[in-house]
């Protein structure tokens, strides 16, 4: 039987990977991809805990909600990004530094 720890370690790795993607990518879409990584890591964490008796079914339900929210969030983020793209004709989010200084 698999223990809890491998899943937790995996989710930690995925989390860090997601953060790394967000930080190191200048393409806006790539950032969204990174966000997905993080959300997935969180959901995985939840389900793993649920599977191993902590929180019973609420872990899965929560993971369900995470998925829903991730979807909604992706939509809105994309809309914002498209707005951004229409204003500044580039996907390089480094060009969105009007708050600089």
């Amino acid at each position, binding site marked *: 039987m698999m223990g809890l720890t491998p899943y937790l370690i995996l989710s930690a790795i*995925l989390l860090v990977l997601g953060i790394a993607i967000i930080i190191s990518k200048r393409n806006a*879409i790539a950032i969204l*991809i990174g966000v997905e990584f993080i959300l997935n890591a969180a959901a995985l964490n939840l389900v793993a805990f649920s599977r191993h008796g902590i929180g019973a079914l609420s872990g899965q339900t929560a993971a369900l909600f995470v998925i829903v929210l991730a979807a909604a969030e992706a939509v809105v983020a994309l809309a914002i990004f498209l707005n951004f793209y229409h204003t500044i004709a580039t996907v390089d989010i480094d060009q969105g530094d009007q708050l600089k200084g």
Partner: protein
Amino acid sequence: MLETMIFILFAAVAVIAGLAILLSTNIVRMAYWLIAMLVSVAGLYFLMGAYFLGVIQILVYVGGVAVLLVFGVMLTSRQLAPKLRPGPGEVVWLLCVAAVLLTGLILSVLHSRWEPSTVVAANSVSDIGRSLLGDFLGPFELASVLLLVALLGAAYLARPKTPVQTVQKKGTTAL
């Protein structure tokens, strides 16, 4: 035994996908690797007995979100050409921070004593449905409202406006 190997398989795919995204510069390739990661996570869900969740994962995440991202890539394809890389200083700092964070998290996980697990039997869809409309009724209704709002918002945000004006910005390195 088998479970462990399948776990390792799925986990490896997910991690490799992440690393591939990190190392890649092509946004389409990145999107593809995302899909790979999502599918492997779904596989892990299946492995853990959360069948409904795994299915939802594939349906919504892969079929919805990933496709949406690809659509996004498509809509912004005019600017695909330039390869956008972070500066070297940034990379070093990122590696350090990532390493520290990862080490910390893993150490904390390893050093914690989790309760001995009582393996819960695979749950059926009906159980999930019952919990949705039972314990999680509030969040459920709110989620639906949220989805509506997100829809409206996105629709408003993405409406067509004045023609795109190119703002010339100097190409900069990072911090």
